[in-house]
């Protein structure tokens, strides 16, 4: 095996390659998210349901609607709400879900001057939709290889200093993305039957976010940390325990999930602030602006659905209630909701380890204290969602605060200098 003799060279090679892979992945995701969105629309605007084959009525209606919508798409114009509203009262409901994609395409285009990415209707080559995700998978695998090489070199689990934990953190971010992207794919019905898979804009947003985070972590570890701190050193006696694997692993996983979740909240806040200031459109009064709720009166149900479920850049109830806003809000809730149990397990396994090692399961060490603080902040976040009216912006502010707290807990406490966690960090 060529690697046995040259583990150092292999490690260097893998390290550089990992950085390049992450850089490329980030680049690809950003480009892809920014420009290639015309055929990937937020899927959580509820698809209008009609389970029957189109009736003659419906076909007629479709015949009216579709060309209208398709032509407006081609011209890059939006269909105003007034136009959609004119379909109302024509009798039966029924825009088949299969065509709802194009339908929504019209609804989702903003009224008035075009803005943002929906301008550009570039249709990428079939199959290139997979490219970003393949890049992410490659980065993920490279990080695994890097950690394995370090494991081989040092003989102990590769999580004993800041460099290794940052690499593992980057891996967790990419892995988190892959898990969520697969769960999106599994639960989303194929938007247009018979066409190739097209990742949704939310998946692209998440991909851009995680790829950039992983890149920054990797870059910081590779280029900013002094070479001495990157070396794998033998473990001090206190770290020679099987608990090392469990406690540190789970903590880093929890940091990754909480960081990504709170980044989504920060993104939500930034977009809310931008769009609520700029948008000044009003909708017809027949609309119910209650987010995902809809009216239920009889035959006009589905159309009312359409109208009352606002498009991406909606002003109904603010941008935050629109599909993209709700998506960011709910996804960050879900991801933080996953990170919280991991954080709990990490803190508690650390406490049990401390009790086995030096007889005290809680000694108010700065690292322990800040981990508890992180736990409390995110517990508050999860609980504020139970309070009526606290959806969207207010929990997002708490999650954003949580972002700072997580970073201080991970890196900041080591700057304070004392405590049981000062192994090989800044001092």
């Amino acid at each position, binding site marked *: 095996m060529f690697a046995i003799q040259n583990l150092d060279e292999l490690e260097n090679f893998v390290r550089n390659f990992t950085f390049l892979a992450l850089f490329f992945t980030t680049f690809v995701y950003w480009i892809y998210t920014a420009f290639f969105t015309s055929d990937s629309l937020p*899927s*959580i605007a*509820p*698809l209008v*349901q009609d*389970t*029957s084959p189109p009736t003659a009525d419906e076909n007629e209606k479709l015949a009216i609607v579709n060309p209208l919508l398709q032509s407006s798409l081609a011209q890059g114009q939006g269909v105003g709400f007034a136009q959609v509203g004119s379909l109302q009262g024509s009798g*039966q409901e029924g825009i088949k*879900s299969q065509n709802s994609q194009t339908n929504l395409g019209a609804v989702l285009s903003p009224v008035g001057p075009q803005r943002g990415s929906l301008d550009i209707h570039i249709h990428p080559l079939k199959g290139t939709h997979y490219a970003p995700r393949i890049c992410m998978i490659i980065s993920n695998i490279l990080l695994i290889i890097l950690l394995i090489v370090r494991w081989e070199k040092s003989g102990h689990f590769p999580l004993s200093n800041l460099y290794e934990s940052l690499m593992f953190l980057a891996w967790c971010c990419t892995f988190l993305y892959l898990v969520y992207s697969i*769960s999106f794919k599994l*639960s*989303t*019905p194929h938007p247009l039957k018979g066409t190739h898979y097209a990742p949704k804009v939310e998946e692209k947003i998440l991909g851009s976010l995680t790829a950039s985070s992983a890149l920054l972590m990797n870059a910081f570890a590779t280029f900013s940390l002094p070479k001495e701190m990157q070396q794998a*050193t*033998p473990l*001090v*006696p*206190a770290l*020679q325990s099987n*608990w090392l694997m469990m406690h540190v692993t789970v903590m880093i996983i929890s940091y990754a999930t909480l960081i990504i979740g709170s980044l989504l909240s920060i993104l939500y806040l930034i977009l809310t602030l931008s769009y609520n200031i700029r948008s000044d459109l009003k909708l017809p009064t027949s609309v119910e602006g209650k987010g*995902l*709720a*809809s*009216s*239920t009166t*009889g*035959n006009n*149900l589905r159309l009312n*659905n359409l109208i009352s479920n606002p498009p991406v850049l909606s002003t109904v109830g603010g941008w935050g209630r629109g599909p993209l806003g709700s*998506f960011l809000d*709910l*996804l960050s*809730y*879900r991801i933080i*909701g996953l990170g919280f*149990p991991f954080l*709990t*397990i990490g803190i*508690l*396994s650390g406490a*049990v380890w401390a009790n*086995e*090692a*030096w*007889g005290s*399961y*809680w000694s*108010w060490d*700065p690292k322990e*204290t*800040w981990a*508890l*603080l992180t736990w*409390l*902040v995110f*517990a*508050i976040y999860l*609980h504020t969602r*139970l*309070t009526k009216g606290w959806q969207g912006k207010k929990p997002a502010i708490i999650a954003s605060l949580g972002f700072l707290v997580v970073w201080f807990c991970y890196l900041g406490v080591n700057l304070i200098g004392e405590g049981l966690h000062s192994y090989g960090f800044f001092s």
Partner: protein
Amino acid sequence: MALENNAVKVAWRKLLKELSSLPRAIAFMALIAGLSGLGTFIPQNKSFDFYIENYPEGAEQVLGFLTYKVIFLLQLDHIYSADYFYLSIGLLAASLAACTYTRQWPALKVAQRWRFVTEPRQLMKQGRTEVLPNASIRDLGVLMRNNGYEVFLAPEGSLYGFKGLAGKVGPVGVHAALLLCLFGTAWSGFGTLKGSVMCPEGQDFVVGSVMQPSTPLASPPASASNVMHVNAFSIDYRPDGSVAQFYSDLSLLDPYDGNRELMRKTISVNDPFRYGGITMYQTDWSLSAVTVRVLGNEAPLAKAAEAAASFSASNSDADPGLASSSGAPEAAAAGTDASATAFNLPMASLEGKPGVSGRLWATFLPLGEPGEDGSAPRGISILARDPQSVVFYDAKGQFVGVRRPGSGKPIAVEGLQLVVEDVVGATGLEIKNDPGVPAVYAGFGGLMVTTLVSYLSHSQVWALQQGTNLFVSGRSNRDKLGFDRELDGLLEAVPERKDLLPSAQQPQGQA
């Protein structure tokens, strides 16, 4: 409960309501968070002088107002054991208990019941509502059941289904586990006995004598009367000189049974000694003494022995910095045997003394008489940082050489040939008896499991058949996105029934 006029009951109910208020609970959590964070910026549990020195009054006030007086007044030097901190934790615990009692438990019981709706208006309150024309409620029921829902169908054409009840039970479990943790911690706080001891190799100590109770409520464990004997202490080093592991070979003896050995174990860090309710952890070490053998030349030797004897006689309360030779009587007894004489010289720690960085132990072998003015006699200084090597300095303080204990290689210092035989170490043990640990561990385990379970989503779906129209509504407490998609999928799969079903023809009255 019906209205009660009993003032106590009214007050109790009001108290519960106040405590279980969520915003208040959030405020408690934020308060504890804030105080905890503060404790990481102000060093805790340091000496009085430390705060006076680092947080002075006058022009150099930290942050313009944080002086040592403020710190002591607000108990900021021991935030984590301050009464207001305990009070905050107590309030949080009370809030947890009140919330579980007044909100979670009743909600849980309600969630298990089947709740049917009788008109579409009620559906809209539940959440997102859809209507499917020409659909049958039974089809929906079957689909839901195949998707993992527990489905209940009322003959009036109303349906209720739920999935993931664990997601509703989880939070109750979280609160219960937290309360158990806090209870265990409180028990620990009251009932712990602990202490630390630095015991040289070959010596022993009574277990109970080195432990102090945290409060008078702490009762000594069964093993308190036993004697712990340190058989050996060693440090494993790596080739690069760093420490691999510390090992202490310990024996627990029963003094009431002729010093019968109860248990013997070699402990290391992360591998403590457990017996009879006490646990001993390897936490520290030091050097206790160095054994030095003098070869040949007996004249200086005899003089040294005499000088040492008179020195120790005149200075019976010897300065700890100057280790007197306890080997002097030995030397005198060994007397004229010129070939070899061993001194066992106790070492003292110089850590923290000016000019000393890190850990350092030293001892002194006097070679002459103390000066007329009482100044220290001429002698050899012997220093060591760890059991691996011993450093010699001559009477003028000049470096002479380094020797490894046990190598047998002599070193010439001040006309004497010295061989370092051994460095006697001492093991630093932390002894603890903590009765709250089982409760705390149980709470931890419960918390780990229940927080994971709380991640699961509890989804509910209601449906109402009116004529040929099927109204469907649903909501989920966690995974709203996934639930939306799932509901979409379910509704899409409901077939359209062009024929009118008998059940659909039954009169669906307004309830």
